[in-house]
């Protein structure tokens, strides 16, 4: 048997001794409590229906009924008064709210709405200006394109027409040539280009 097992055995023995001492102490306390005197209880029974007579009972009920009605009426009156006061206060409060808070809010709303309206007007004005400028630019561009296209087509037509007419004229010149009639033109042309011809020939 090693030291661990010895230690555990000793621990178990100590625990058993403690439990035994505790049981004995509890048994002694229980005996002391049972030895104390217990308090006495007295039972009393009263029959209410036999305190008053029958005639008094009806009178009491009547009076109680009247008092109950009076109390209920007064309570209703106070409730009514309270409700009216509350309504007046609520009305006043609502009126105050309407006169102060709502009017302020409304004024702020109007200011905001006016600012929004002004901003919208400015934006729309700017947009309108941009649209006008764009429209003018587009119109000018379109006019320019149309004008250029027209000029281009007219130039093409003129070129074709010139080709046709010049070709017709060249073909119409034919072979029946009178050089005598052309001599004036020939000498006039030679004279007009005399300097160039002279320069080329002498070069």
């Amino acid at each position, binding site marked *: 048997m090693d030291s661990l097992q010895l230690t555990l055995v000793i621990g178990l023995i100590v625990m058993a001794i403690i439990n035994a001492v505790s049981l004995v102490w509890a048994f002694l306390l229980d005996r002391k409590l049972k030895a104390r005197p217990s308090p006495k209880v007295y039972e009393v029974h009263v029959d209410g229906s036999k305190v008053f007579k029958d005639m008094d009972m009806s009178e009491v009920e009547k009076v109680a009924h009247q008092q109950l009605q009076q109390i209920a009426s007064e309570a209703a009156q106070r409730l009514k008064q309270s409700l009216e006061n509350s309504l007046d206060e609520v009305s006043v409060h609502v009126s105050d709210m309407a006169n102060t808070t709502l009017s302020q809010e409304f004024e702020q709303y109007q200011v905001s709405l006016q600012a929004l309206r002004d901003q919208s007007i400015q934006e729309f004005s700017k947009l309108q200006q941009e649209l006008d400028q764009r429209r003018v630019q587009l119109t000018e561009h379109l006019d320019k394109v149309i004008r250029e296209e027209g000029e281009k087509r007219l130039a093409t037509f003129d070129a074709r027409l010139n080709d046709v007419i010049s070709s017709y004229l060249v073909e119409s010149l034919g072979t029946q*040539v009178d050089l005598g009639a052309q001599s004036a033109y*020939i000498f006039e042309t030679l004279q007009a280009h005399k300097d160039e011809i002279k320069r080329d020939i002498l070069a």
Partner: protein
Amino acid sequence: MSVRMPNDLYSPDQLSAIILELRSYLAQLHDGAVRAKTAHTPMEAPATHLSALLMGVMHGTGITTTDSAEAEKLLKGLEAIRDKAPAVHLMMAALPNRTLKRQLTAWFRAEVHPYTLMTFAVRMDIGGGVVMQAGSHIYDFSFRQQILGNKQRISEIFAGVRQ
């Protein structure tokens, strides 16, 4: 020697022909001179008939047909002209007559160079006017070129009519 060429003498071919003719004539003159010297007789002019062109050149230059020394100078002058004179080639819608050739030659010799030589050719597609080649440059003064070069005037005229 200052050679004067008539306006009828305008082409290099004509000039070459009269050079040959003049050279032959000079040979005959030389033969005649040798014969006259051998026979102790006066020299006579050769019986050869000279062309009108050569006669025109000789008369224009102021030499006689029997003066062989002057004729030699004329030959050298003509050969120099043939080698150095400027040539102009003219193309026309029809072949010009002699009068027009003379007029053209006279104009070139008066305005451009006194020994200008000219050749003429026909180009029927030009319609009229003249196409001239001078040196390496070609001047197109033909009706065809005038019409094609100014065809934009047609549209201008149409534009004027439209307005």
